């Protein structure tokens, strides 16, 4: 609160009630960071379905095509569970896809 400071326990409860009324949802924003985009570590900390910003915090490389998600999970977050195993079983699955935005149709289909 910027107008007054709670001093006793009841005042802290009032403060909680007021901030529940006036507070906002801070998705990918962080007020402490002067309004700059707050970028959580890993998409699982993000409760929105899919990326709203790209790995650099901008919008130029958003999830189009959807395969962009695969690469962000796999490369950006080091979370290979959603993509084929690039090390042992499907080392070549993205060989024909140099740029996801342009060549996404060339990503191989891998059958487990």
């Amino acid at each position: 609160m910027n107008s007054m400071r709670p001093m006793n326990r009841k005042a802290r409860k009032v403060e909680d009630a007021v901030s529940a009324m006036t507070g906002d949802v801070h998705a990918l924003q962080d007020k402490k960071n002067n309004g700059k985009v707050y970028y959580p570590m890993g998409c699982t900390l993000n409760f929105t379905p899919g990326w709203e910003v790209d790995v650099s915090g901008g919008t130029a490389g958003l999830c189009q095509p959807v395969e962009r998600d695969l690469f962000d999970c796999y490369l950006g977050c080091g979370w290979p569970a959603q993509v084929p195993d690039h090390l042992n079983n499907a080392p070549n699955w993205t060989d024909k896809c140099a740029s996801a935005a342009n060549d996404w149709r060339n990503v191989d289909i891998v059958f487990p």
Partner: protein
Amino acid sequence: MTGAVLTESPYRLREYHAFDSGGTQFLYLVPSGAIFALNEIGREIVECVGEEDRTREELVATLGERGYAEEDIEVALTELEQSDVIFSRGGTFIEKPKVPTRSFPLQRVVLHVTNQCNLACGYCYEYSGDKISETQGKPKNMDASVAEAAIDMLIKESAERPSVHVTFFGGETLLNFPLLRHTVGYAKTKCAEVGKSVEFSLTTNATLLNEENVEFLAEHRVGITVSIDGDRELNDKMRIFHDGRGSYDVIVPKIKMLLERHRTNSIGARVTLSAGVLQVRKIYQHLTQEVGFKAVGFSPATANPERLYHIGVQKMSSILGGFEDLAWEYRDWAVAGKQHGFTNANDTLKDLHSGISKAYPCGAGLGLLGVGTAGDLSLCHRFVDSPVGKMGHLQQGGVDHAARNNFLETHNLSSRYDCHTCWARPVCAGGCYHEAFVHYGDTSAANLHYCDWIRGWNDLCLRIYGEISLQNPSFLDRFSDN
């Protein structure tokens, strides 16, 4: 009415008590009991709203001229409005929850283990001119069957509460020590069977303390309140035996033995102030330094104004002066991180810290009931065996829930109209039912003869709270557990 008109409604101040402490302005909000320290912008808004009617737009403009950013002003106005400091007809405020008072589980019984006393204190409400109990035909001492029934009733009526409390009262409680000993054992056994914990306390005049009963009280962690009014001269003005001898010389060696041997629970002195016994500082110093008490509390004798020992308005203000003296000393100790023994200040600060907002002045009839020697249930220990405040009978149907509910409905703060404009009502709620009955013949009357005193005392404690919260806030953590 259109939205446009609503937003143009001027702001007004809501109900609060403002006080300065340590160079900071605080607000004590009523009825919530919240204490806030105002920041610069908050202080200016409250001042502006208090000066004249201003709309939101006008306030933003006025404060903008004083150099505040519009966004800060808007946020501050919304905060102050939603915290119930200011309001406008078009504004919003948080709906307060209604607290149900029915089915309130019992927490404590006060057992009148005896109607007898070996002292004849002049101001005693049990025996003096203001006596309201009718003990004719009632046994002098409570017997085991009544005490056991009281414990059984307490366990049943306490419902889901994990802990209960038994207070022994009288008369002089130690005149019936055998029953006290039996009841402690019975209550412990019965509470253990149902998985509840039980605590005990008693009030005594200390004349009958001996090594045997002190050892028992210490073993069972019985909290003790000792009635004593100061040094020999002051104590013996009122606290005398039936033959007129003073009790001081008899009780002090016993109290010292008690303080030496009983370390398992608190032992406090309870001083009853009356017309000739008003020297608060002198009494406190004697009881802490000479006798050895760690905690001393004061209470004015309840009396009809016609009684000689009644404390008039003028003398009540001298008591406030004495309280103020000790309370500032409490502040000094608290800032230094030490616990001072002035329990009146301690108790009020504890209430202020939690932000208590009472619907009833005390727990009488709510979480507490008194039990007479014959098993009569009453509002509290002061109404035991009185025709007023009857709450049933242990062996005739137990708690009279209809009477209890009726009492709670008619004595809620909302029906005490005299209190509705008083800022101290969150902590006072109208005051003691017994005091009101003795003064006005009506338990539901507000104790108007104490109002200025109560407000003066609470204002003092708020200022002390403010200073402690600024200078040593960690001291207040000790109030947070309960």
